[in-house]
């Protein structure tokens, strides 16, 4: 494309049927203890 560059594609809806196994880290326990920063958490399946 000439006017638009896509940085990343549709990642949120990609694995929707497999979502919610719950094995991932609890977000507040990584560094902050006061705010939810979830987008930087890892998925245990990847």
């Amino acid at each position, binding site marked *: *494309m*000439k*006017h*638009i*560059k*896509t*940085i*990343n*594609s*549709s*990642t*949120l*809806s990609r*694995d*929707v049927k*497999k*979502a*919610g*196994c*719950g*094995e*991932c*880290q*609890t*977000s*507040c*326990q*990584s*560094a*902050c*203890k*006061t*705010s*939810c*920063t*979830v*987008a*930087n*958490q*890892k*998925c*245990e399946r*990847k």
Partner: protein
Amino acid sequence: MIHAYKMHGVNIVLDVNSGAVHVLDDIAYDVLSCYDQDGTLDEQRLTSLNHKYGAEEIKEACNEIETLKKENLLFTSDPYSEYIPLWTKKTVVKALCLHIAHDCNLRCSYCFAGTGDYKGARSLMSLEVGKRAIDFLIENSGNRRNLEVDFFGGEPLMNFDVVKEIVYYARQREKEANKNFRFTLTTNVLLLDEEKRAFINEHMHNVVLSLDGRKEINDEVRKRVDGSGSYDRVLPLALKMAEERKDKDYYVRGTFTRKNLDFGKDVLHLADVGFTQISVEPVVAARDSGLDIRQEDLKTVCDEYERLAMEYYQRRKNGKWFNFFHFMIDLEGGPCVAKRLRGCGSGTEYLAVTPEGDLYPCHQFVGQKEFLLGNIFDGLNNSTIREEFIESNVYTKPQCNQCWAKFYCSGGCAANSWQFNGDIKIPYDIGCELEKKRVECALWLKTQEVEV
């Protein structure tokens, strides 16, 4: 829903429901502004661009936008609604915050825990309570294999023998129960001697080291019991710990208040003295305490985040790499949408345990009796409060449902919501604005990492 914004001369668009991120030139950005949030082009608005751009380039930009719409990368509808009941049902407990010590050897002026005692008696967790907490977690974790225990306080190093015994006990129990414990410890560092560092390195998945940044900033708020500053004692020990972690996780973790709205300098100071894993975030202090971030501070703080993002980018590019927790974002392999609906899981899969064994939704609710959820000996009670936490997600919070950042902040901190609005479903607006700015900075950084 989309979110379009400009940062450091880059036009960025986030497609909220798909998570796709695009960089647009000025023509496409202006053309996109002629679309409504549902993806309908307003032809009348489009004609207003005729004086600025040629007809051909406007048409090209429109065609590219329409192509992205067809590819489900722009103006996508919400595909998650049918899954929400599945993702928000009652869940198991998988993480505990153990309040090893309701006592502290610092007297920080912004402490939400009443300088360590949580506004109750100063007390230490016994080994009996600690062991029972491990049993409680195993019993309530269903099929979840990965379980987390955070040693918290007050100051957990004031009761470190119990920390060690709890770890040994959990390691013994995890085998027979087919679980995998991950331990973290949050400390003010004062008592972090060689023996404790060795134990932490052997057993802790993560360690969080509290230090606010520049000496004068840190010592203004993080005072020892005798009123002296803590920086000179903490810095060398924290650096030693960071160095000894090698490939294991740690964070040096600071707090900024309205007394250092130029907190970017504190982040950079922590990088300059040698830390590579850094988290500095806004204080949660009572309104008008003198330390709380106020509405009138927002522009200053947001500008500071943007400045920090630029400096962060420059340093990382020029070999001075460090990681700032709040600018981390994983656009390719981040958490699933189910995780993003509920965030930290406080009151549901994550609970705090007091030295006496009482259960609360998280460390920040400890001591507020209306949030008591039971205890580790008798189990969870049938409090309607827990139901409120179970039902709480970005779709049940009206402000979050309409917000472009909902899949990145996941509804914010329930404790902040309660503290400022008396309702865990009404987010703390100042916290929201800061979180949105951090996500914008994180996305901008991603656009700089790829060749645009």
